[in-house]
């Protein structure tokens, strides 16, 4: 009962027309739970994450953490944005440290460790414009991890990474989650990823975004992607997801 | 010979300074326009705030006639601008003075020693101030001279930031009538002329001598009208410029307009001023002020009467 999410309605005024993006999203996320969110592109996943982070207050409903309403963002709710959002005038290490001073030995040490973890050794002094897509994404991940927030909200954090770096960072994330007992909400398009990491998977439908199904994943860690149980859950998620697509798109899904 | 060279002349340019001159009256009444229209010539008026731009206009062939004070004329001549002084427009005996506040303790020109005196460099007041200092038996370094344009000197004077102010009309009248200022000394008391001149661009005078005469005749009419109709003149100026009649009347009393040939006495005063300015390095060469004086037009204008 730690994080309680209730979004009765979230709408945007698009060109004067009011468009409802989220409706009746009710979720209780346990302390230390790992929730993954999947759903069709444009269904409102990022919007939900922003609301939970306190970045967007224009909605009907209430988000509360341990009973206290979340009205503004803060370091307790870490956020990895979908589009990296690095400060273009800061180098990689400065971006990770952000408002903290690299001259402080403790910060310096942690930053160096994280650079090692996200495999950016040698790129510390590069500016964002000199980074590849995947490198930028890893900087954003390191920046969020440095702060060790209570809740970590991740919006497709591994989208631009190759299969191996991705798996490496999935494991890093799972380790951190277990070690620090953080609560994590991860938006992803990778069903494998969602099954690999989650306690629970929320499958969203689109227009407006609603929770279509909540699927628990009761597997011990570390998980094996090839185990039959894993595959059966994966199939279940896929099937539920397929249904949501049918809701929103008439044309053949092409699969 | 009213035709001939007058043929190719389409328009004459007259400069008028923002002071109370019969030119303004003539402009209001359209006398120049009427007179020159007979020759098919248009009149274009241009208003100026001070002397120097008028010389710039003359140098650039954009101005044919104007009226300027003594100091700018010297500067203009030193700068090699081609013009002729064709008449004396005022003697300026009472047009310059040094203002002090009533009860300021400055009762004699000798008291100026060590005081802050405002003046605009290059103006007639500048020349006047040096003359006063000389008369008082002081050296310029004995007085704290501060260079301020009139509109900047005024608040400084009002707020007591300066002790005295060497200035000309209409400020003398304005200040003495409207506030607690008094005139410490004026040109009459030290016998110092601050003449004003009517000028013509030399090339214009060579090409259209008869139009120069015509100009002086019309101006003469305005001068005479002002003298004859003092009350109406005061009324007119007051309306044009939006200032109190009382002030206007006082100003007119102190700056009687003239339209006369330039006398040797005036030339001598001018030469003194020029030499003095050279001494101060305000102008960078010695000049002979006689060279720009040309009374021939005035003589023709005054003796001719109605020649048409």
């Amino acid at each position, binding site marked *: 009962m730690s994080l309680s999410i209730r979004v009765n309605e*979230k*709408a*945007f*005024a698009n060109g004067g027309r*009011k468009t409802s993006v989220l409706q009746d999203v009710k979720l209780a996320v346990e302390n230390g739970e790992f929730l993954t969110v999947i759903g069709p592109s444009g269904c409102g996943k990022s919007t939900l994450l922003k609301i939970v982070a306190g*970045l*967007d*207050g*224009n*909605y*009907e409903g209430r988000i509360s953490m341990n009973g206290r309403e979340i009205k*503004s963002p803060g370091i307790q709710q870490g956020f990895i944005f979908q589009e990296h959002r690095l400060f273009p005038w800061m180098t990689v290490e400065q971006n990770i440290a952000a408002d903290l001073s690299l001259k402080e030995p403790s910060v310096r040490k942690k930053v160096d460790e994280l650079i090692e973890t996200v495999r950016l050794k040698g790129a510390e002094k590069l500016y964002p414009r000199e980074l590849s897509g995947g490198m930028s994404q890893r900087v954003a991940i390191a920046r969020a991890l440095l702060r060790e927030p209570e809740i970590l909200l991740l919006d497709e954090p591994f989208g631009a990474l190759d299969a191996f770096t991705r798996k490496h960072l999935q494991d890093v994330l799972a380790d951190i989650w277990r070690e620090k007992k953080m609560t994590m909400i991860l938006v992803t398009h990778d069903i494998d990823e969602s099954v690999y990491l989650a306690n629970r998977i929320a499958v969203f439908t689109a227009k407006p975004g609603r929770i279509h199904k909540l699927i628990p994943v009761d597997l011990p860690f570390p998980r094996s992607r090839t185990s039959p149980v894993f595959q059966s859950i994966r199939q279940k998620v896929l099937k539920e997801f397929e249904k949501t697509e049918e809701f929103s798109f008439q044309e053949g899904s092409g699969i | 010979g009213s035709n001939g060279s007058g043929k190719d002349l389409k328009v004459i*340019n007259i*400069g008028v300074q*923002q002071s109370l001159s019969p030119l303004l009256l003539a402009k209001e009444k359209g006398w120049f326009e009427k007179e020159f229209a007979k020759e098919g010539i248009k009149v274009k*008026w*241009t*208003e*100026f*705030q001070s002397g120097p*731009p008028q010389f*710039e*206009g003359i*140098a*650039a062939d*954009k*101005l044919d006639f104007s009226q300027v004070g003594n100091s700018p004329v010297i500067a203009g001549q030193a700068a090699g601008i081609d013009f002729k002084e064709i008449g004396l427009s005022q003697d300026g005996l009472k047009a310059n003075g040094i203002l002090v506040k009533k009860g300021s303790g400055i009762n004699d020109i000798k008291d100026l020693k060590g005081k802050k005196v405002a003046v605009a460099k290059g103006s007639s007041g500048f020349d006047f101030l040096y003359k006063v200092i000389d008369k008082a038996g002081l050296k310029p370094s004995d007085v704290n001279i501060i260079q301020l344009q*009139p*509109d900047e000197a*005024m*608040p400084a004077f*009002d*707020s007591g930031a300066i002790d005295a102010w060497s200035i000309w009309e*209409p*400020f003398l009248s*304005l200040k003495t009538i*409207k*506030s607690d200022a008094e005139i410490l000394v004026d040109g009459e008391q030290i016998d110092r002329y601050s003449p004003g001149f009517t000028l013509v661009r030399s090339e214009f005078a060579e090409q259209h001598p008869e139009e120069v005469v015509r100009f002086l005749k019309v101006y003469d009419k305005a001068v005479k009208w002002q003298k004859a109709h003092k009350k109406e003149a005061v009324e007119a100026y007051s309306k044009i*410029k*939006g*200032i109190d009649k009382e002030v206007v009347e006082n100003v007119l009393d102190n700056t009687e307009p003239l339209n006369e040939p330039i006398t040797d006495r005036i030339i001598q005063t001018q030469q003194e001023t020029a030499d003095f300015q050279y001494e101060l390095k305000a102008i960078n060469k010695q000049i002979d002020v006689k060279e720009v004086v040309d009374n021939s037009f005035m003589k023709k204008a005054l003796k001719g009467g109605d020649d048409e």
Partner: protein
Amino acid sequence: MRAVSSNTPAVGPKPAAKHKPAAFRLAWGKGFVLPVIIILLWQLVGSLELISKTVLPAPFDILLTFRDLIASGEFFAHLGISIQRAALGFFLGAGLGLLFGLIIGFSKIAEDYLDPSLQMLRTVPHLAVTPLFILWFGFDELSKVLLIALGAFFPVYINTFSGIMGVDSKLFDVARVLEFHWLKQVTKLILPASLPNILLGIRLSLGVSWLGLVVAELMGSSAGIGYMIMDARQFSQTDKVFVGILIFAAVGKLTDSFVRVLERKCLGWRNSYQGNQK
């Protein structure tokens, strides 16, 4: 702190979003607080006759003079001609500034040859070049308009140029890949991308044009607000000077507000501009 409220406007239950006109009116009102306080203090100082009237006439006296000027019709004559001059000068100067900014921002060759000369011209004082203007253009409207245009040129020029320099090269790459014709590059990429800067330049230019009147109307003029001020100064009619100053301030503020409304309209696509609405 505004930095905390950069949300996009939403159709939500928050009352703030619904009562925008009222909020807008309130914001307007707030802008008047400071001027009103100053005017009241000023009137007080004036009424107590702490300062000579010729130096600082009280607001009420200024108002009376203003009324007289309006009644006599003098005021609108001055205002009309001044607005005309400023507008002509502004359009000429800002138009050329935009053109040169675009050309020089677009072509490195043009920059190398022209920009240094223009930068030198920029710090040539108006008051000092009026004689040249008199020589070349006489005392007529032309030289006044050109003098104003000279001042209006630079803010737009520099802002446009720098706006183009600031266009994201990633978008340039897109334009190259799509083989934009140069005209399309200008209209679809460069102009919109540097619009925030260009509008800024226009705001500054408008101010400069308006201020340029004072110098322009110093030379051989007999009408206009600038002339009115300088003429009144000659005769110590300080109240008239202040009427002029207030008109300058008011017109300046008005044109500025106008450009800012334009800004709000044209820059709706900006992800950042929202901050200003709250």
